[in-house]
């Protein structure tokens, strides 16, 4: 037992070392160091080797021992896929990166309109499909321990010891995975530490297998030629190649390589650089070739040397042990252990991501939404659900291991898993190559394929009478003959594995295609489909044009339309000159096309520019996404232009206002000029008389007394005129500026008119007869009596001066207009011509009164006063003579009559 304990100790140390490597790598990655290593194509290639699990490590030899070279198909499939990486893998990686895909379930659900139902279906299928595989790893580690134990003391007691060993191994693996994979959360679901650990394990298992191989060929057989001779002599050399099995197995392993959740994890999710695929495309097949190099020699020598009945699955281990090479056996054990652990870790990590993202979290969020709002950290919930998922998945593996009784060849169990996950292939490939694929189609295909796989492969794998009765095997489900699990549709004689793979995948693909054709995708699905299928046209890395067919002239015409003729010609000419060509048409190099696209984008938006160039260059058709982007841009432009429109409307309004204001200002300025001219004239005219006559009086000798008196009187009159003019101007200015303070008093209208008439008659030589009805005038007013009196005096004086009738009469009539008091002044003269009425209230407007020496300010002042008093003075039409109406507002007419 000492050596078994030592083996366990070695395992623990090995695991601890791996953990250290992972930890250091993660820390370096976080600090941004060691990027050359973490993101190297070598690490990527080595991480792909988790394809080679314990099944490959141990089982390939067993496979070869049982079925000859058929094991090669398991390596052939992946090699074909990765050699043809350009076709599928590159596309998957590009989609995975541009859509931040976290798992194969995420990819499929995302492609079909982010359907959560689909994600759950894929997750459940993946868990069920991968469980046998995890059980396989448990079995291989347990069995290898058992081989060691057998070498010492005759093997485990199958009933208890193996079971407890398997349980401990399962617990250890679960802890290991939890520690490795869920120490922290990463948005991209990337695990640098895990990947590095996996790469290290890949190296360990390769070295172990090569070491065993070298030992077998040179240590036991004694050289290459001896080994070849032994191979020729063995039964292996005569194995017939079964074409259908070869094709079927190659196909299913290729499909599994693409669809296995753990492969998707390392290949797509953990991919740092698309170019790594290029290296991996030859490095990974090389790795596989090295892994398979010594499979046949080990199988042949093992069959030769080891006793009949030895499990060929463990020749890798038992051969060195039988030769007493414990060290080599330990290395070999570590290789197998590495294969098993790396697979379990990555597979459970990938599955737990799916389970937690697509099953647990939606349920949790749904429940939380229903309950009271908690402020719990979702992060912790995610981590917890990850860890529980890991435990659950490994637990399932353990249960399967127990249920399947730990029996069965490794290769057979592996193939069950392969065929199970291969059911994702139609939905996945259809999703990335065929835009017509729909969600319902994917669900149908997956459902049919999965059901057939369960019925024809998974359930029968437990043997008769475990899940399926022996009767079902023989007579079909429910006794229907063509529903026999290993001879569907009544076609017997097929190899059970090939039978299952053939029917499940065929009907899967057919239902997927047919249902897709019959259903219509909803818009989100359509959009996602377009993006997935056209991933290369859309992702940034391939935006460059390859325009060998581009027509420069067409481009020129388009550019002219958008940029304007001169701008476009300048651009093209400059480019042509730069290329050393004459004229204005340059070679449409990708660089130039890109520059042109940028220029156009400045005018019409990036998406439109891209679509336009795409149309002309012909390299790409305009896709739904392009159109959506164009529509988006157009909407933005529309909004922008409507904003511009509003702005320009506002601007033109402002401009109109400005124009009006300017016109007003100009008018005011003209008015001011005219006003100043008028004032100047009004002031200078009396001054001219005063100066002229004062000079005459001063300079003229011998003037008669009468003349002297006459001239002095003129000076006097003109001086008074001048003074009155100044008074009026000041008055008007005060009134116009609103600086006047009203002196509100109470008095009767009749008294006010009496005083006004008296004043007017005193100041004006020409008299006029006044016709009034005093009774009407008994109205009490509360207003500025002096100002109102000024208005009355002005109107009466005007009538006196300008009436012009032979028997001038001024009629003063007082009436009520509602609450307002109306005073009309009507003379019997010829009236005022219509044309003059508009301007008579303006300053300096004198109406045909040649002999007046008034300045034309009287009526302007009257109007200003009445405005201040809250009333009005207007010309009253239709009386025959000149008539003015003074209206006093009601508030100023007191009720007392």
């Amino acid at each position, binding site marked *: 037992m000492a050596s078994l304990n030592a083996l366990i100790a070695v395992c623990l140390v090995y695991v601890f070392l791996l953990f250290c490597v992972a930890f250091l790598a993660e820390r370096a990655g976080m600090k941004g160091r060691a990027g050359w290593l973490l993101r190297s194509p070598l690490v990527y290639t080595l991480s792909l080797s988790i394809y080679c699990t314990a099944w490959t490590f141990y089982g390939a030899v067993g496979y070869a021992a049982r079925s000859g070279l058929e094991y090669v198909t398991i390596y052939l499939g992946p090699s074909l896929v990765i050699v043809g990486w350009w076709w599928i893998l590159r596309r998957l990686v590009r989609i995975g990166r541009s859509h931040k895909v976290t798992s194969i379930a995420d990819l499929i659900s995302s492609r079909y309109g982010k359907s959560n139902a689909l994600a759950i279906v894929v997750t459940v299928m993946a868990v069920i499909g991968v469980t046998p595989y995890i059980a396989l790893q448990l079995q291989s580690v347990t069995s290898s321990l058992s081989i060691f134990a057998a070498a010492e003391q005759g093997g485990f007691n199958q009933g208890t010891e193996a079971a407890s060993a398997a349980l401990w191994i399962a617990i250890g693996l679960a802890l290991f995975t939890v520690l490795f994979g869920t120490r922290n959360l990463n948005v991209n679901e990337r695990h640098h530490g895990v990947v590095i650990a996996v790469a290290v394990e890949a190296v360990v298992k390769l070295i172990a297998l090569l070491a065993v191989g070298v030992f077998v060929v040179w240590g036991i057989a004694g050289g290459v030629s001896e080994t070849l001779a032994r191979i020729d002599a063995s039964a292996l050399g005569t194995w017939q190649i079964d074409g259908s099995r070869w094709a079927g197995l190659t196909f299913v392993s290729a499909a599994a390589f693409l669809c296995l959740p753990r492969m998707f994890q390392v290949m797509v999710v953990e991919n740092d650089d698309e170019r790594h695929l290029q290296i991996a495309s030859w490095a990974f097949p090389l790795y596989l070739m090295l892994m398979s190099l010594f499979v046949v020699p080990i199988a042949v020598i093992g069959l030769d040397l080891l006793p009949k009945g030895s499990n060929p699955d463990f020749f890798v281990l038992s051969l060195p042990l039988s030769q007493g090479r414990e060290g080599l056996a330990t290395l070999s054990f570590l290789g197998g252990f590495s294969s098993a652990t790396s697979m379990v870790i990555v597979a459970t990590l990938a599955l737990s991501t799916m389970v937690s993202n697509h099953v647990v979290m939606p349920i949790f969020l749904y429940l939380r939404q229903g309950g009271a709002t908690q402020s719990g950290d979702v992060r912790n919930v995610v981590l917890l659900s990850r860890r529980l998922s890991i435990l659950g998945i490994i637990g399932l593996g353990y249960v399967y291991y127990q249920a399947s009784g730990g029996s069965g060849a490794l290769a057979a169990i592996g193939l069950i898993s392969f065929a199970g996950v291969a059911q994702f292939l139609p939905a996945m490939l259809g999703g990335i190559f065929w835009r017509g694929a729909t969600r319902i189609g994917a669900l149908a295909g997956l459902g049919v394929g999965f059901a057939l796989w369960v019925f024809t492969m998974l359930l029968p794998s437990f043997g008769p009478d475990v899940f399926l009765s022996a009767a079902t095997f023989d007579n079909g489900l429910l006794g229907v003959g063509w529903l026999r699990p290993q001879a569907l549709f009544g076609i017997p004689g097929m190899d059970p594995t090939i039978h299952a793979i053939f029917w499940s995948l065929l009907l899967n693909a057919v239902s997927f295609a047919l249902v897709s054709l019959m259903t219509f995708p909803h818009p989100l699905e359509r959009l996602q489909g377009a993006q997935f299928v056209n991933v290369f046209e859309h992702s940034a890395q391939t935006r460059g044009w390859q325009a060998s067919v581009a027509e420069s002239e067409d481009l020129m015409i388009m550019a002219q339309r958008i940029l304007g003729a001169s701008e476009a010609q300048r651009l093209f000419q400059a480019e042509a000159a730069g290329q050393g060509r004459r004229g204005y048409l340059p070679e449409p190099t990708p660089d130039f096309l890109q520059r042109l696209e940028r220029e156009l984008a400045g005018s019409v938006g990036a998406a439109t520019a891209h679509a336009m160039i795409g149309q002309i260059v012909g390299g790409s058709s305009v896709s739904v996404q392009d159109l959506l982007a164009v529509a988006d841009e157009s909407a933005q432009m529309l909004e922008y232009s409507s904003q511009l429109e509003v702005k320009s409307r506002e601007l033109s309004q402002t401009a109109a206002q400005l124009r009006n204001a300017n016109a007003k200002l100009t008018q005011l300025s003209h008015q001011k000029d005219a006003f100043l*001219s008028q004032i100047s*004239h009004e002031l200078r005219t009396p*001054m*001219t008389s005063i100066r*002229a006559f004062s000079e*005459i009086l001063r300079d003229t000798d011998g003037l008669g007394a009468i003349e002297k008196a006459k001239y002095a009187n003129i000076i006097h009159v003109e001086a008074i005129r001048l003074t009155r003019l100044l008074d009026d101007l000041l008055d008007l200015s005060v009134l116009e500026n609103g600086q006047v303070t009203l002196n509100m008093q109470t008095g009767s209208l009749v008294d006010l008119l009496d005083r006004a008439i008296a004043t007017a008659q005193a100041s004006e030589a020409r008299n006029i007869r006044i016709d009034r009805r005093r009774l009407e005038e008994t109205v009490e007013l509360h207003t500025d009596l002096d100002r109102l009196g000024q208005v009355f005096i002005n109107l009466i004086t005007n009538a006196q001066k300008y009436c012009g009738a032979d028997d001038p009469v001024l009629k003063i009539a007082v009436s009520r207009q509602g609450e307002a008091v109306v005073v009309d002044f009507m003379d019997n003269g010829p009236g005022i011509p219509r044309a003059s009425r508009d301007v008579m209230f303006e300053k300096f407007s004198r109406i045909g009164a040649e002999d007046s020496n008034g300045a034309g300010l009287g009526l302007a002042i009257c109007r200003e006063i009445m405005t201040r008093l809250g009333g009005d003075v207007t010309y009253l039409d239709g009386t025959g003579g000149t008539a003015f109406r003074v209206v006093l507002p009601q508030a100023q007419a007191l009720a007392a009559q």
Partner: protein
Amino acid sequence: MGKHVLLVEDELNIIEAIRFLLSREGWQVDTHSNGTDAAQIIRERKPDLVVLDVMLPGKSGFDILEELRGHEETEDLPVLMLTARGQSRDREMAEKAGVSRFMTKPFSNTEVLTAVRDLLYVHGQRT
């Protein structure tokens, strides 16, 4: 023999003053106070000099001057223009219209006399 001066002016007191001044110098002073037919009156009466106010009822002094300059018989007629508006623009307008002498009111009596004398003398020299 007394020269004939026609005074076109609407302010009675100013007419009185100018008439007094020019009459004392021995010139025959005639007056007219309406702008509308002033040019026609001038052509009819054929004065040796016109003293023209700017702000006249009916037609402005500028228009009358232009009309005078547009007729052959009055294109060289000496015109002394008087204005109470006193803006520099008025002087420019008057000069453009072909005024012989331009003065702003209130004027100095001596200046008016000198101006009239000059104009009559220069005009007399020429013809």
